[in-house]
């Protein structure tokens, strides 16, 4: 899960948890507030009652009666006075039932004993619980709304702010990681940010990429220079041998030796040539503006290679559509790629074996060519390394391969964004699948 999603989820859930907690505790809190307020109200009433009692005297209220009681019409509040024994002290607030005119009601009751010249009296001031509760509901509702509103606002602010904060990270991922391909040829532009962590991450990535790019450049330059420098002495040696072979007085024995030398030299020349070719492909020195039909390409390859088929008695069958044209490619390179693959299929085939070349168009518009051979096959553990330089099929009996043919194939494929996959079975054969991406394909109609 992405960091931004995680943060969003966390912020939302934590806020929801807080709201839930608050909403659950709200009735209790509001109840508490209402009761406190009621108690305060009752105390105020008590003071007022005592004031008037002091002013008017208890008798003005008792009017000869034993006790005094007064309540409002709806029995929401009442006040009572009654004599108690001398020395009785009570001063408290509690919730209790009271029966007033056959109605049993719950009251919040304040009792207070006080002494007058006539004796000790107990005063009660009561207020129905119902009137207390009537504040609770609207209070609770308003509190909930306000709370939800506040939470929503902070949630939105939080989300926007984290999004804003994390934007540099997103940009680093997009420009430095996802869209970058080895060997990171383009220059890296530093991301605008004042978050030190992101600054550090971005700087580290840029410097890492520069290091990789530099190392790769050096290796590439070395290969190109080394190959280039090797060509001159090879040329001199080759010409010396040629001149020597042209001398009439050279004996058959020496002639034979010279041919041997020439062969070895040629092998060296070929290796250097191949390395130079690979380095040029990796240097992107080839244009990709040509187009060729696959049928034509295979015809060209067959033209060059058919002599090798007859030599080994191999039957080759090509079922290639002639309606497909490859675009934005380098024709010479694709020729070389197909040539090397077919050549490989011949070299590692069994005598009188077969090679079958088929193609198919995939639903996503990409185009596959399969080269199926009846060769010796490639052991599973070798499939991954077969495109490496200077790697030879371990089971190969002839030592002709110098392990660069498939490296060249790989470089050419990579250069054109072509994918080559291998499916092989020992002693049965190998299938090389060349997958051309849809953008290289055009259909002839």
């Amino acid at each position: 899960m992405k960091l931004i999603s995680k943060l969003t989820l966390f912020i939302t859930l934590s806020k929801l948890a807080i709201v839930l907690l608050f909403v659950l505790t709200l009735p209790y809190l509001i109840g508490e507030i209402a009761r406190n307020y009621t108690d305060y109200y009752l105390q105020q009433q008590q003071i007022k009652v005592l004031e008037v009692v002091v002013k008017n005297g208890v008798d003005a209220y008792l009017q000869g009666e034993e006790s005094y009681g007064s309540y409002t019409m709806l029995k929401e509040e009442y006040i009572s006075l009654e004599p108690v024994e001398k020395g009785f002290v009570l001063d408290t607030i509690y919730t209790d039932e009271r029966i007033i005119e056959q109605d049993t009601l719950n009251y919040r009751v304040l009792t207070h004993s006080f002494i007058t010249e006539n004796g000790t009296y107990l005063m009660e001031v009561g207020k129905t619980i119902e009137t207390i509760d009537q504040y609770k509901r609207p209070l609770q509702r308003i509190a909930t709304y306000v709370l939800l509103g506040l939470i929503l606002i902070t949630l939105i602010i939080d989300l926007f702010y984290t999004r804003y904060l994390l934007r540099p990270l997103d940009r680093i991922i997009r420009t430095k990681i996802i869209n970058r391909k080895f060997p990171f040829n383009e220059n890296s532009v530093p991301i605008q940010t004042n978050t030190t962590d992101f600054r550090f991450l971005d700087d580290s990535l840029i410097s890492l990429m520069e290091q990789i790019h530099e190392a790769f450049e050096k290796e590439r330059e070395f290969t190109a220079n080394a190959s280039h420098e090797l060509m001159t002495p090879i040329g001199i040696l080759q010409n010396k041998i040629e001149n020597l072979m042209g001398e009439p007085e050279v004996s058959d024995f020496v002639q034979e030796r010279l041919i041997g030398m020439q062969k070895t030299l040629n092998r060296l020349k070929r290796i250097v040539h191949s390395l130079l070719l690979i380095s040029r492909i990796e240097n992107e020195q080839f244009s990709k503006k040509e187009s060729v039909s696959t049928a034509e390409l295979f015809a060209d390859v067959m033209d060059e290679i058919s002599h090798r088929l007859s030599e080994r008695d191999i039957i080759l069958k090509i079922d290639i559509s002639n309606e497909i044209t490859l675009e934005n490619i380098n024709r010479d390179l694709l020729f070389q790629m197909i040539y090397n693959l077919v050549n490989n299929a011949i070299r590692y085939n069994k005598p009188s074996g077969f090679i079958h070349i088929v193609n198919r168009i995939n639903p996503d518009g990409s185009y596959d060519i399969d080269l199926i051979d009846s060769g010796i096959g490639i052991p599973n553990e070798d499939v991954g390394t077969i495109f490496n330089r200077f790697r030879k099929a371990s089971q190969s009996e002839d030592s002709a391969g110098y392990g660069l043919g498939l490296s060249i194939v790989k470089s050419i494929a990579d250069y054109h964004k072509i994918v080559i996959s291998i499916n092989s079975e020992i002693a049965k054969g190998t299938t090389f699948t060349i997958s051309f991406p849809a953008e290289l394909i055009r259909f002839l109609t």
Partner: protein
Amino acid sequence: MKVLLIEDEKTLAYEVEAFLKKAFYICDMAHTAGKGLEMLGVNPYDFVLLDLGLPDLDGLKVLQEAKKLNPDAAYIILTARGNIEDRIVGLDLGADDYLPKPFSLLELQSRMQAISRRKFNLNTHEIILGEFVIDLQKRIVSHQMNEIELTRKEFDLLSYLLLHKNRVLTRMQLSEHIWGTFADDDYDSNYIDVHIKNIRKKLGAFGQVEWLETVRGVGYKIRK
């Protein structure tokens, strides 16, 4: 034919010179661009073999200068740079051919021969070989007015052997000429033999082909 070889690698230059002299060319050498241009200003040459990697001046500039001094000569570029742009620019600037280093001397001679035919229109198009007449220009082999059909590769093989007549050519040299860089590594394979066999069969139907000799363990040669 007069040849000027402008090449800074002296050892290589001497080998080329030795080879060309044997092939009856008159060969002058210059190891710097300055010296080369100086010589071009004084002497008329038929061929200029120009190395692009000269120490004192960029090879392509030398080519431009040289073309001004001697526009009639045939120019062959020799280079180890071998990148395609150089090749295109070189040919655009009026070079007649382009040989990447390392090159075979036999190949060099073959290219020079081809240019001679094309450019100087020498009357050596038709070569008589035993009972056969070979027209290198029209690429036709005939026997008493009968045209014999050879494939492109068979004809190339025959004319290459013919150019270097009396010299044994190895299978490797032959396959390199015909397949160039695509020639494969296993020279012991017999596909050159298959082509030679076909040539013998096709020509043999009309007349004697004993001039095409197999040299055991080495290769083939045309004796004349």
